[in-house]
């Protein structure tokens, strides 16, 4: 039962990493798009494609938090009393990002747009970085079972910094691939090439960082390293293969297929992390079943998850279909 609840929680993490990640990554491209003149068109595309979907994608984060604190309350408290600095910064980043994005849509003067846009774009990089360091802290065993771990080294450490960097890079990668497809849908050849080029560059950089990361993990988190190379190996290879395929075939395949490959690459590496730390929730202190809430709570969460499957997933599909068909136009 507790494993099932953990699987539901982890599904939420996957959904947020892919969907929320694409939104964060769009902020990364917004940030690096250059001056007001040069960056106008990519920013416009970011704006139009994000506007209808980012709030729905964002709810996955709330879903994960609620699943974690209800299903595994002691582990949640252990995480928040240890990693409160990166979590707090991520929370503030999320606020600045959402507000900045919503404001920029209405503002017209360039200097004001720039200010709101900067709030949106900088925090779009800050928030996933911080969440990545949190993952690194948990995966490398720096969150004690009773919490109150070291407030600094729990997230300023090699594994966490690797986690944060990879989070930012994978977000940027998924976003570039999604925005390439979005530009294609709008028949904007120039913009399609703009994002395509960037998706290739960032795919290469992500691969290089991931390779370097192997050495980092070996030195800093031998337990995670071993698990990734044994139980997690198929998923790690799958991620590497789909990432590489996306990089090499981006010009030949339909954008939709590349999108699928990119999603697979990200989902597989996150699933790899999950597999590597199973059966622990807080490596190596607390297992999933030790941290689990009473059975009745887990049953309640299961019912909520089932309802989500019946109500939320079709609604979300409707939203994406309408957005893809161009039925939702920003003002």
């Amino acid at each position, binding site marked *: 039962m507790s494993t099932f609840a953990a699987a539901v929680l982890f599904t939420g993490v996957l959904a947020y990493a892919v969907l929320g990640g694409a939104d964060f990554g769009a902020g990364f491209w917004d940030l690096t798009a250059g001056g007001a003149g040069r960056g106008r068109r990519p920013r416009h595309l970011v704006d139009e494609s994000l506007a209808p979907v980012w709030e729905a994608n964002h709810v996955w984060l709330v879903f994960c938090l609620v699943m974690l604190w209800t299903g595994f309350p002691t582990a949640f408290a252990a995480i928040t009393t240890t990693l409160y600095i990166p979590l707090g910064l991520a929370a*503030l980043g999320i606020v600045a990002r959402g507000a900045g994005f919503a404001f920029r849509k209405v503002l017209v003067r360039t200097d004001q747009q720039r200010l709101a846009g900067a709030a949106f774009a900088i925090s779009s990089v800050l928030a996933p970085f911080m969440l990545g360091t949190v993952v690194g802290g948990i995966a490398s065993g720096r969150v004690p079972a009773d919490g109150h771990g070291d407030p600094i080294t729990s997230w300023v450490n090699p594994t966490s910094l690797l986690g944060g960097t990879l989070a930012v890079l994978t977000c940027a990668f998924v976003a570039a691939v999604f925005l390439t497809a979005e530009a294609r849908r709008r028949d904007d050849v120039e913009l399609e090439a703009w994002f395509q080029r960037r998706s290739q560059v960032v795919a290469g950089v992500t691969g290089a960082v991931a390779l370097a990361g192997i050495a980092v993990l070996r030195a800093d988190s031998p337990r995670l390293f071993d698990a990734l190379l044994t139980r997690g190996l198929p998923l790690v290879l799958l991620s590497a293969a789909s990432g590489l395929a996306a990089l090499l075939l981006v010009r030949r395949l339909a954008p939709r297929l590349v999108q699928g490959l990119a999603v697979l690459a990200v989902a597989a590496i996150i699933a790899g992390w999950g597999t590597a730390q199973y059966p622990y929730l807080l490596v190596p202190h607390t297992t999933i079943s030790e941290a689990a*809430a009473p059975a009745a709570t887990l049953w309640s969460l299961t019912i909520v998850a089932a309802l989500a499957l019946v109500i939320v997933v079709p609604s979300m599909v409707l939203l994406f279909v309408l957005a893809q068909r161009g039925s939702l136009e920003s003002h």
Partner: protein
Amino acid sequence: MRGHTAAMGVLAEAVPLLAADSSQVLPARQMMAFTLGFHIILVPFGVAFTAIMLIANYRGIRHGDETALQLARRWSLVAGVLFAVGAVSGTVLSFELGLLWPGLMGRYGAAFGIPFAVEGLFFFVEAIFVAIYIYGWERMRPWPHFWSGVPIVISGVGGTSSVVAANAWMNMPGGITVEDGRVVDVRPLEIFFTDAFWYEAVHMLLAAYMVAGFVIAGVYAVGMLRGRRDRLHRLGLAIPFAVAAIATPIQVVVGDVAAREVHQNEPAKFAMIAALPETGTRVPEVLGGVLVDGEVRYGIEVPLMASILAGFDPDTEIQGLDAIPPDERPAARLVNTVHLAFQVMVAIGSALLGLALWGGFSWWRHRRLPENRLFLACTAVSGVAAVVALEAGWVVTEVGRQPWTVVGLLRTEDAAPTTGNLWPFFGATVVLYVAIAFGTFYVLRLLRERWRAAEAEGEADPGGEGDVPYGPSRARAGDRS
């Protein structure tokens, strides 16, 4: 901005004093109060404003009323901005439950979290359909577009009720079995539907409709006071005012029932509300007044009234503060806060009832709302007043629960973190929220100016919100950058 500077000054003084203190109760409480107080203002706009918008939309399609359609479309833009800020400021509260109250979540998350899981579902539905509705004006057909807004209203009711269920559980915890300080079994339905749930949820939902209704009506009342007495302004005042005016009398009755339930279920909170030092019967109602050295001073006494209100009988006994065990007895300043906040809420509620009756009477006799300056001025301030009442109500229920976070089970000092220093986090949050509050006002003013400029130009509408309510707009394509 002046309040902000003052707050920072207080903060600067407090930091060195408290940085060494391992207990983080004070910053945790202040930060929760600040962020919840901020977020709660936005809640009515996600929950109730969307319903008001749909009423205008319905009227627009059903009766071919172009003005109503234009209002609905403008309101959806405003709702879009407010929903975004509300969604992210609500997410901060989720983080804060862990960052500020690890003792609560670690011990009772298994119970307390269940209503939040239900709320998560509603939040999903709300976010999805808000997006479809707001961005669906151009390309969707009128009726499907209208129906895409209906799930927002339903999930607003469901989501609010779920969050309030969690709060009600903190006031009247039930449905759990605790062994050795650990929750070993939960009964989810008992957790969700506590005795406090019904009146708290209905009270909050009606409050949301009142706040949204009076604030929006107030905005158009200001416009009319400044001489803009066109149909757009009249209708923009009438629709939200009607919603608020229907909610207000119901709220007065629900509030009255809620007060009696609190008397039964939460005697300690009721003692704070009444600022009653000693248990007794034939208790007078004290209007205003503060508790100093165990005595209420400077208040106006209405003989027997508190007992009559609590039980329809002057001999109704009301528990005083003396009935609370000494180590659980709240400090006088907390009692005074709750006592005065309750009175502010009731006073504003009564004044708003008067305004609602005034408007309702005019509608009954003349089929239109009054348009004299006094009525418009009252309506103009009614929105701010309703927000103040909403905040005061939350002060009553939250401060009135102290020293408990979960009544009888968990004291607030045991819920707060024992390590770290929350003051810098709090400071950064205040700065960011002030900037966002400023940005929100600025952006909404900008929308208004744009609409005005469009009206002045007559036909052309640069935002594309007015001229062709359904179907692609003419002036959109080249305008955005």
